[in-house]
């Protein structure tokens, strides 16, 4: 087995190409190490491109190999993309957050992965480059093939960074989850919301929940109902009902029954919306 700690993106792409499908990109290895290990690994944890968090020309850029711990404590993420900081802070344990990454969380493609749900809630796009140096940019929710399978082929393609429109004045975001314990427990349901208010009324909104389908699921019908309304008690009750009608969740022997999950999903999406709207209302110039 070979293990390369890549010192440049170029070197990483060249070794993936030389690996002819037998080498694979890796970041924290918290998922990959528990699966079948490939013949060669190309570690992306130390590249500038994959580890930087910055805001440039009105867009936030977060390296795909940013760890959950880093994203959860970054002042930029906390002020401009709070849902992601909250999603990352909920993952596993300190040990897992110190090494597991946001890109790995998306590519592992677990249906209720916390960082992935927050990223889809924020409307993040991923920038990828393949061994032929071709780049593409995709909405995160479009990177899922089926349950636990990503459309990203990590033997040929590297996810470099996520691009997120920062939450500015009048905008807010939030993430919520419910699990049996506060640490080391996958969520029964998780949800994220992003909202833009104008004079107290919803101008733009994104509502996302999981697990329902392979990718974190956008609740387009509920979003439509919310547009133009104030986020008050009536809207929140309406969202709870509308979500439970729009999305169909399954029960899990390990985590919870379908009925309970169906109830939870409405409650959690509504709660994320409420928090996001509160943040939007108090955001002033500083973002959420």
């Amino acid at each position: 087995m070979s293990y390369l700690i890549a010192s440049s993106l170029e070197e990483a792409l060249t070794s993936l190409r030389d690996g002819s499908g037998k080498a694979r990109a890796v970041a924290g290895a918290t998922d990959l190490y528990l699966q079948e290990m490939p013949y060669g690994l190309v570690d992306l944890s130390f590249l500038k491109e994959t580890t930087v968090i910055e805001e440039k020309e009105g867009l936030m850029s977060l390296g795909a190999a940013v760890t959950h711990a880093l994203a959860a404590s970054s002042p930029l993420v906390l002020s401009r993309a709070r849902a992601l900081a909250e999603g990352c802070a909920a993952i596993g344990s300190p040990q897992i957050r110190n090494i597991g990454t946001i890109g790995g969380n998306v590519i592992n493609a677990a249906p209720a992965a916390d960082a992935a749900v927050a990223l889809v809630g924020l409307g993040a796009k991923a920038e990828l480059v393949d061994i032929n140096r071709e780049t593409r940019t995709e909405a995160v929710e479009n990177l899922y093939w089926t349950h636990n399978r990503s459309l990203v082929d990590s033997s040929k393609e590297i996810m470099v960074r996520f691009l997120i429109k920062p939450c500015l004045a009048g905008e807010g975001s939030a993430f919520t989850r419910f699990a049996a314990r506060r640490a080391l427990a996958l969520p029964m349901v998780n949800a994220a919301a992003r909202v833009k208010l104008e004079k107290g009324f919803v101008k733009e909104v994104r509502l996302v929940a999981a697990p329902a389908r392979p990718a974190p699921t956008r609740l387009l019908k509920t979003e439509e109902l919310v547009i133009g309304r104030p986020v008050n008690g009536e809207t929140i009750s309406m969202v709870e009902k509308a979500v439970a009608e729009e999305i169909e969740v399954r029960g899990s022997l390990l985590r919870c029954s379908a009925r309970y999950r169906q109830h939870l999903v409405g409650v959690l999406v509504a709660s994320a919306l409420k928090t996001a709207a509160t943040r939007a209302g108090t955001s002033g110039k500083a973002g959420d």
Partner: protein
Amino acid sequence: METYTDPAESLLMVLREKLGLYGTKAGCGKGECGVCTVLLDDRAVNSCLVPVGKVQGRKVETIENLSRGGKVHPIQEKFVEKGAVQCGFCTPGMVMSAYALLKENPRPNPDQVRVAISGNLCRCSGYKQIEEAIMLAADKLKD
């Protein structure tokens, strides 16, 4: 330290089987229990999940590094004083999580202590004495 091994081997197995450092314990092997906690570049990680190839040229600290000149570290001292050790199997991992916390945040509050040890399971204690021992160690280290 230098050793020759398969880079896919876990850091945990290399520490124990190749380097003879048995202080770091082997438990679930899946990141769920925390007994294998070590510091990688000053941050707590589960050594059972780290392929050793990742560790080339980086700093790894294990429980063996905590005592100095035959004297145990203040965290270890307070664990003993508080009776935070029963069977002791979780203890090296707990101590390393506490050590990582105090390196980053020398004055934690009880909530921060709870988060810091939330990846470490203990089957014997109720966690209370462990929490208290870490708070006392923080006090002692401040002086």
